[in-house]
């Protein structure tokens, strides 16, 4: 068997793929968030960001391709690992108490699936506009403000930001372990790193629908 196939067949191999693709997705998430935050500066700044995004179609499609591959691999490995992990204990404990595993770590597959579902909705809403009642292809500012004007929709966006934050609260800590990055020099900072960045992502993304909802835009 080819060494890559052999590597992927192993549980640490799959987890390694999850970690690398997770980091790629996280990098995109950060860029996307910084872009979205331009909306707080005003319509022109947001349009500037959008123009930048579409300025180089080659780059845009490369990024989209990389994202699609990363997301696909992340989801496939997530499902395979979860199925395997659930199968490793056919008779469950009658009483189960956790000492360290937190809510975030135990719900990774659920927060993950929720993120995927939201991602599909979000694409249909803001990119293709097929579920957006007032979609204008060229006017991102309008699409965001009118789209998030509806309270259930903006609350869904806030909730999705929180769920993503929860996923990253465990993921950004766990990723160090998986990639073998452990050293007494920075181990004590890993928890803080994950906490801070999951909060940044939640607040960064969440601030846009909240701002629209509170009519400050």
């Amino acid at each position, binding site marked *: *068997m*080819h*060494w890559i196939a*052999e*590597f992927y*067949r*192993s*549980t*640490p*191999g*799959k*987890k*390694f793929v999850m970690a690398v693709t997770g980091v790629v997705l996280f990098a995109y998430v950060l860029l996307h968030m910084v872009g979205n935050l331009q909306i707080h500066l005003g319509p022109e700044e947001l349009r500037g960001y959008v123009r930048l995004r579409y300025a180089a179609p080659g780059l845009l499609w490369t990024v989209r391709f990389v994202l699609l591959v990363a997301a696909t691999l992340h989801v496939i490995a997530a499902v395979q*690992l979860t199925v*395997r*992990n659930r*199968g*490793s*204990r*056919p*008779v*469950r*404990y*009658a*009483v*189960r*108490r*956790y*000492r*360290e*595993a937190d809510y975030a*770590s*135990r719900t*990774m597959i659920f927060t993950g699936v929720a993120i995927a579902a939201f991602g599909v909705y979000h694409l249909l809403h803001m990119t293709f506009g097929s579920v957006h009642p007032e979609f204008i292809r060229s006017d991102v500012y309008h699409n965001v403000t009118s789209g998030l004007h509806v309270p259930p929709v903006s609350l869904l966006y806030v909730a999705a930001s929180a769920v993503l934050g929860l996923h990253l609260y*465990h993921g950004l*800590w*766990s990723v*160090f*372990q*998986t*990639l*073998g*990055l*452990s050293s007494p020099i920075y*181990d004590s900072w890993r928890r803080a790193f994950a906490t801070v960045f999951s909060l940044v992502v939640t607040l960064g993304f969440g601030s846009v629908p909240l701002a629209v909802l509170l009519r400050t835009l």
Partner: protein
Amino acid sequence: MRLTLYIWRQKSTTDKGRFVKYEVENASPEMSFLEMLDMLNRQLIERGGEPVAFEHDCREGICGCCGMVINGIANGPAGGTTVCQLYMRHFKDGAVLYIEPWRSRAFPVIKDLVVDRSALDRIMQAGGFISVRTGSAPEAHTILVSKETAELAMDAAECTGCGACVAACPNGAAMLFVAAKISHLGLLPQGQPERDRRAQAMVRQMDREGFGGCSNHRECEAVCPKRISIRFIARANRDFLRASLFYSKSASGKAGATGKTKRCFEK
């Protein structure tokens, strides 16, 4: 002390098993958990019943065979210890305790609380050794090992293979065990020649045995009687990754990523 125990009773591997309720009176806080079970068993035998089977040997917290899950925590609530070193004073008078065996697909129940941990032995047989006979302990200065490295290797070598990590892991993963074994030899000079082969072979066997994968829940570290750190898991991941990239003796014998297969370790 009075206790209400719900103990998992299972006649054999194929038996379905169930909880049976036992009332224990006049247990003393000075008793170890196993002594409390001994007392229960004596009463069961006197009444003509079948005693509860549990594994025990050293009763000094060394051998690692006395594991069981007490109220949802492997080795009980004290932490960092084995059940034989757990004392009844760790429990409240009148406590209700659910006592279960390690539950894992890779650890079939033999009887009651006794499970078959041979899967861990097979992982050791796959690579947890050094092939070259080194004779008796050499003069300490012939191979220099720094104090830090020696201590780290000793920390990993403390693993008794008790299986608490598997029992506690929400995924039923054996990663802490495997990581401790990979690290303990991988840290020392004598373990270097086979370091890549060892990491690959042990991980592969771990997967074959049906253990789950590590999700970094950290439950293993919390219940390990020897408090082995999950830092060893990061180290084992590193070793496994490096071995896959640069060594990779694949099952089919084809060369790995670098195109060279180290023949000297092939059968």
